């Protein structure tokens, strides 16, 4: 099994209301060393071992489904799953 980790985040220019709310809460808890919070999504995709063209497929899934290119960008890592 291969594990693919995908990270989707809002583009820099976009206000992230959840991140803002969390930042406020974090400050409320006294953790003022945290100056900014951005919230995104994280996916773990399990890919079958004999799969070919993993990159092409993953990019397609990200472009078309996991991220909305109007507001989000993504990156991913392919790793061997250690059983």
């Amino acid at each position: 099994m291969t594990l693919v980790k995908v990270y989707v985040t809002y583009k820099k220019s976009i206000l992230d209301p959840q991140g803002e709310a969390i930042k406020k809460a974090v400050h409320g808890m006294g953790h003022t060393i945290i100056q900014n919070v951005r919230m995104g999504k994280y996916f773990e995709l399990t890919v079958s071992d004999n799969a070919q063209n993993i990159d092409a497929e993953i990019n397609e899934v990200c472009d078309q489904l996991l991220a909305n290119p109007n507001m989000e960008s993504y990156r991913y890592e392919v790793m061997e799953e250690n059983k």
Partner: protein
Amino acid sequence: MRFAVIVFPGSNCDKDLYYAVKDGINADVKMVDYRENSLEGFDAILIPGGFSYGDYLRSGAIAAHAPIINEIKRVANLDVPILGICNGFQILTEIGLLPGCLMKNQQNKFICEDVELSVENNQTVFTSDYNYRQILKIPVAHGEGNYYCDESTLNELNKNNQIVFKYCSNINGSVENIAGISNKKGNVLGMMPHPERALEEIVGSDDGLKMFQSILKSHMDRVNL
């Protein structure tokens, strides 16, 4: 005139739209399953609100891959009126028939209340029965209705008169108070408020009725040409 209401798994305002057409303007209406691949013979397409696929991942994101979507794109090109309400609006942006996107409400919460809307463009097939800048009372109910687009898109929207409805006061963080926009040609409209919930005084307002009447009238005008 024949309306289609598209039903995705999880759509939950589909029946409300169905009744809006059937009882509101006494027109012919049919529920169309997301697996269908033809919209032949329909004169207007309605994409309902509600949580298609639970709105899991992102509102409208999964519905954007349903089989019916290609057909919706095809008839959009043929100038068939397409109205997406709430989740329907979200789906229309996800499939690129409308620009921009709908983000989480600025206050980070779902909001349900009657809001005041201003009709910014009454020259569309959906709004011809309203007056310009008429104020309507129509309910909203959404968690992700915060309309966003980049600056150049916004300029385009303004230049082409694509902003159809604005909130009278900004309820969710939308740029320029945008509550509904159309495509450039004007046959595709997406809006967050729910006109189908405002058809009778007894439920609080009948300001939504004219929207369905406009669609019907525009159709009749076209047919009679």
